[in-house]
């Protein structure tokens, strides 16, 4: 029944808006367009990396995808099944298959419980396992994520950041999910520990046939982990394609600026990389600019860009961008 090419997750013009303030506050009720018109297809076994500046809507989109947030507009499909407005009880059987890992593992781990217990928790809530089976599964999970059996009796604060993230990952994979959404899972970790977790995620993906949606602000980490990336700007996807291609030849002016700004270790006497420095600041999602939302900062904006919003279009097989004048190589 499982068709490798059939999308596991799909969004159609998905939008998430937040209302802030009240009609009595100084500025009245206002709407934050956090995610706007996102159509994204995720296939089984791949890793889709989400990148973009702070506040562009990565976390909000991630939370919509696992239905931690209600979706304002558009559709969300899981294995072709419309789950946009399923109730919590209808979602219950799906919960197990859709998991999420957050940036700060300590915030999601109860400090007063032993980590063995914390990893067992999802098994108790969702599974139909006996106490003995649960113990065996916890042991297996500890081994999978590279923790030692005698770690089980410890409390979260007795662990390093990297080990706590391993606990968070063990919890997320406890119920054999199909899709794991990872929101900045390595951002709080020391550089030397980051690589361990990146490798662990790759191993688990291979062993357990997982599909990932991966968010990180470190672009070289995203490139390493992802098969495909989606670049977001002010709530929308502006470019999408195979990770290595997009990094090598970004076509959207925003992706070009973003990738060129990543500081890299260079051993040449003077930097050879050309850097595009964007002027202006990220506009507010309360009042998105007209036309192309990037136009106030775009180095090549033309009149058309100010009035007409570009759609995300497939300009080359597998490469999509939302720009009237993409750089196609």
């Amino acid at each position, binding site marked *: 029944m499982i068709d490798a090419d059939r999308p596991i997750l799909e969004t159609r013009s998905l939008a998430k808006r937040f209302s802030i303030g009240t009609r009595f506050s100084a500025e009245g009720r206002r709407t934050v367009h956090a995610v706007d018109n996102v159509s994204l297809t995720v296939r089984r076994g791949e890793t889709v990396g989400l990148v973009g500046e*702070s506040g562009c809507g990565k976390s909000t989109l991630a939370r919509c995808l696992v239905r931690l947030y209600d979706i304002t507009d558009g559709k969300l499909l899981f294995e072709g099944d419309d789950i946009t407005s399923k109730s919590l009880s209808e979602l219950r059987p799906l919960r197990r298959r859709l998991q999420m890992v957050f940036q700060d593992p300590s915030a999601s781990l109860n400090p007063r419980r032993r980590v063995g217990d914390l990893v067992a928790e999802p098994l108790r809530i969702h599974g139909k396992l006996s106490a003995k089976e649960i113990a065996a599964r916890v042991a297996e999970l500890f081994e999978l994520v590279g923790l030692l059996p005698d770690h089980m009796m410890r409390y979260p604060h007795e662990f390093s950041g990297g080990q706590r993230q391993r606990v968070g990952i063990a919890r997320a994979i406890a119920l054999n999910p199909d899709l794991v959404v990872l929101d900045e899972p390595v951002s709080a970790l020391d550089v*030397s520990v980051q690589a*361990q977790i990146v490798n662990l995620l790759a191993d688990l993906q291979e062993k357990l046939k997982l599909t990932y949606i991966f968010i990180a602000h470190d672009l070289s*980490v995203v490139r*390493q982990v992802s098969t495909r990336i989606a670049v977001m700007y002010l709530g929308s996807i502006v470019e999408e394609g195979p990770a290595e291609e997009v990094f090598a030849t970004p076509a959207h002016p925003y992706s070009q600026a973003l990738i060129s700004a990543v500081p*890299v*270790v260079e*051993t040449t006497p003077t930097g050879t990389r050309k850097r595009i420095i964007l002027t202006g600041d990220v506009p507010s999602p309360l009042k998105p600019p007209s036309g192309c939302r990037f136009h106030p900062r775009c180095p090549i904006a033309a009149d058309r860009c100010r009035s007409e919003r570009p759609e995300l279009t497939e300009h080359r097989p597998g490469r999509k961008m939302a720009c009237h004048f993409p750089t196609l190589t």
Partner: protein
Amino acid sequence: MILSVRDLRVSFRTHDGPVRAIDGVSFDLEESEILGVVGESGSGKTVSLLAVMGLITDPNATIQGSIRYKGRELVGLPPRELRRLRGNEIAMIFQDPMTALTPVYTIGWQIAEQIRAHRGVSKAKAMERVEELLAEVNFPNPHEAMSRYPHQLSGGMRQRAVIAMALSCDPALLVADEPTTALDVTVQAGILDLVRKLRAKHKSAVVFITHDMGVVSELADRVMVMYAGRVVERGTRMELFSDPRHPYTRALLGSIPPLTGQKPRRLPAIPGSPPSLLRLPQGCAFGPRCPVRYEPCESGRPGLGGGAHAAACFRVAQA
């Protein structure tokens, strides 16, 4: 020579015993030179610079060693004198710009006050200077920006306002502690560009703390790598990045995923995690994670030795 630090030691008395946060750090800084300080969380980057600035106020702290600024010893200097130096010749920028800004005043007013406190100029003159400074740090509309409150600025603009404030005294020494860590790469690129330009124009010497090897390689003339309270390697930018010697520096550089070219199937990761300063391992502090550890490594902590490009490692000393 602007700054010369010798055998700096900072320790804190805690419930669990003494924490030797800085354990014998020495470095020099020349005029208009940018020194990059890299290292993981807890390696002692901030504490060493706070010590230099005379800003360690914890009563449980003990500071030893020598810190000479333009030949003048700062360790033991009365707080009043230190404060004068900080406002006049030494400026600081921190990760969170709000540590330097007050929410209730406009940024124009705050920078002007800073100028007036240290240079007895008129209010109008100070305001003129503020506008110049804001233009210099790339505010698109400096005159208008002067009347904004910090919360009306984005994170990147706030940090630029703090840089403008730091520059208002034409500092001979600028100390920046992770000033771009909380910012987006696109905004960071602008700030790094600015620091480079300012160094050229004002001839300020800069100490730039970061944990990002990429940032260091783009900005610094010389680099100091810290691990568990000590400098484990120092050298010029070129020496450090094209010929890293310390196993930790090498491993750290190796574990950064590439931005171009072939992706490795797995990243060469460093096992374990940085040690607790309360329970340092026997011998070399990097020992338990070191791929090339051998017997001598347990005998004591390796010294950095002299030399412009130096690494604190028994293997390097032997080679």
